[in-house]
């Protein structure tokens, strides 16, 4: 009903205008197909994010299948995505993951957007022992459940908060206090908690540390309290609509801090569009930025620049970390199948666990809990209408700007 198979493997081959001999090879190869299942939020609250995953995987698939597929143990395999819309309903994501495994008989699964829904799908994948790659889940609480088949391409939240605290302290030596205000939801809560811990470890005073409930429509009380606490740095986490409202109310109620961080607002174009001038100067961590320059990567894009160019041509807009991480997740998956030499689920799982490769998105090296480790994550800031990278120094294209 809601599902559709991506048949573009055939379409791409035809479009490429390959001659009959190549078509014959393709027809032979069609007997072996790597089937990737993906429950996606294509409607409902997370539709924007789900569509990002869908779009970038289509781009990836077109690229891979334009080359005839992927080489596995000397054979060529076509790749096919089987996706269903779970309508941003966590329970349905779990049910559809089960359907993908038992009914559609996919070889591997991709997790949907967000730590909460990833956790639900991971439990299903674990039950059926199907490898699952999560490209948009970064909360350690998803990975500390003892899952053996779950791997995530985003790095742990804690790495982000420690490097951010250190960077701001270096740039603003008089930085003394921080107010932390997070959404009571898996990822935003984990980030708020990690930042409060990192700030305390770095000797900062946490003058305000509260969570707000999902469905909060007004931040007046919190902003009034933060204003009274007079912090040097305000750190707020949440979804884009929360952050837009929060930043607006900071301004309305006169919260003044030289550093305002909203995770992960500036990583999304809709944040800056929804705030206009108020977005200027807001900082955030992000897992990836297209300014990062990696070369010699596995997969269809050998460099970050090549991915960026293809993405820009296809969609006319800059990719964000969701696009980068999810495309890289597909590269990781193919690499594991190639290493395993087959689509045998246990062999692919073992190959994933041993993964240590460079993708256009950066290095992928899964730790014991299945999370990607050893990545230096960028700090970004809104400068006018542009997003600038402040950290790490190797890819920085601007210096920290204080908010007046």
């Amino acid at each position, binding site marked *: 009903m809601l599902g559709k198979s991506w048949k573009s493997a055939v379409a791409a081959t035809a479009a490429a205008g390959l001659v009959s001999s190549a078509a014959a090879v393709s027809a032979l190869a069609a007997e072996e197909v790597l089937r990737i299942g993906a429950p996606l939020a294509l409607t409902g609250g997370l*539709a924007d994010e789900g569509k990002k995953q869908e779009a970038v995987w289509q781009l990836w698939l077109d690229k891979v299948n334009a080359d005839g597929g992927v080489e596995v143990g000397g054979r060529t395999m076509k790749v096919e995505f089987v996706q269903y819309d779970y309508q941003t309903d966590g329970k349905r994501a779990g049910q559809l993951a089960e359907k993908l495994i038992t009914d559609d008989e996919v070889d591997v699964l991709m997790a949907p957007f967000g730590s909460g829904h990833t956790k639900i799908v991971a439990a299903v994948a674990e039950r059926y022992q199907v490898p699952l790659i999560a490209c948009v889940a970064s909360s350690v609480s998803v990975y500390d459940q003892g899952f053996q088949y779950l791997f995530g391409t985003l790095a742990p939240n804690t790495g982000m908060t420690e490097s951010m605290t250190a960077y701001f302290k270096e740039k603003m030596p008089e930085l003394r206090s921080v107010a932390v205000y997070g959404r009571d939801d898996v990822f935003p809560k984990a980030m708020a908690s990690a930042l409060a811990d990192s700030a305390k470890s770095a000797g900062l005073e946490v003058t305000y540390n*509260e969570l707000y409930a999902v469905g909060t429509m007004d931040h007046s009380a919190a902003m009034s309290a933060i204003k009274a606490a007079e912090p040097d740095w305000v750190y707020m986490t949440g979804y884009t609509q929360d952050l837009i409202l929060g930043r*607006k109310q900071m*301004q*309305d109620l006169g919260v003044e801090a030289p550093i305002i961080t909203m995770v992960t607002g500036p990583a999304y174009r809709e944040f800056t*569009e929804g705030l206009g001038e108020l977005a200027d100067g807001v900082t955030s961590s992000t897992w990836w930025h297209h300014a990062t320059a990696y070369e010699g990567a596995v997969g269809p894009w050998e460099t970050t620049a090549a991915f960026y160019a293809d993405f820009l041509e296809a969609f006319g807009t800059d990719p964000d970390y969701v696009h980068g991480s999810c495309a890289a997740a597909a590269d990781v998956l193919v690499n594991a199948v190639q290493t395993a030499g087959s689509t045998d689920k246990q062999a692919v799982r073992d190959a994933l666990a041993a993964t240590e490769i460079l993708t256009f998105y950066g290095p992928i090296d899964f730790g014991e809990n299945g999370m990607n480790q050893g990545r230096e994550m960028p700090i970004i800031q809104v400068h006018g209408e542009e997003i600038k990278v402040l950290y790490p120094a190797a890819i920085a294209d601007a210096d920290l700007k204080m908010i007046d």
Partner: protein
Amino acid sequence: MDILQILVNGIVLGALYACIAVGFSLVWGVLNVINMLHGSFIILGGYLTFFAWFYLGLNPILVLPAVALVLYLLGFALQYLFINKVVTAPVLTTLTLTFGLDMILYNLMTVYFTATPRRVTLDLGIVEFLGVVTPVDRLLGMGLALLLTALLYLVMRGSTIGRAIVAVRMDRQAAALMGIRVNRIYAITFGIGALMAGAAGAVFAMVFPVTTNLTGVFLGKAFVICVIGGLGSVPGALVGGLALGVIESFAGFLLGPQHAITVGFVLMLILLVVRPTGLVGVKGYE
């Protein structure tokens, strides 16, 4: 921390809440229909206002009457074509129907407008009085919300249509015997409910982000406000909205923002047990 600031924050928010609930309360009270479309109506009003501002440069306040009219026509049509067919059925039937219609409207908006949060970035500044800071757009929203609520009150009290609506609410059969075309009154009432939602959406586009993610939140608020204030009456929605705004504001300050919403729901549960008619609701009265 200035208690006065918390109180003002709560009152301003409460007036906006009242604007959410008044149309919902009317439809529930008169038609005995729990209108699951209400949150989506508000967001649709917000989108229409946003697009008029973004593409045509029109001020939200100028657009408000047109948006309200569009929503009225939509509400009237939906009631006339669909809901009237089952309006006398048990409440679960109409609830299911409006739930289905809401899924269609909600997903149409998500597909065509995307769930990307939008905002009318008309930052009108703040006013400061006695150390209390209030944003002008919220004050304006509060003024409009109170004005709309008062207008509806006057229409219900003083106009022929208003009296007919009240008559239908009190006794459907007797109203029909008096020559009132009941189905038409139902459609008008539902239309007015949608009109109020559209007007609220136009006001909110200046204050809150406009995104389909918030439809459920608005619907939930409308429900709580109606139970707190009292069903089916305009003053009930106003009192319920103001009470919830002030309670959430103080609860957020005293107990932490994490618990602000919980306190509102706890109050709703208590009232359901000890005073089911709400703070000012009187059964059978409009």
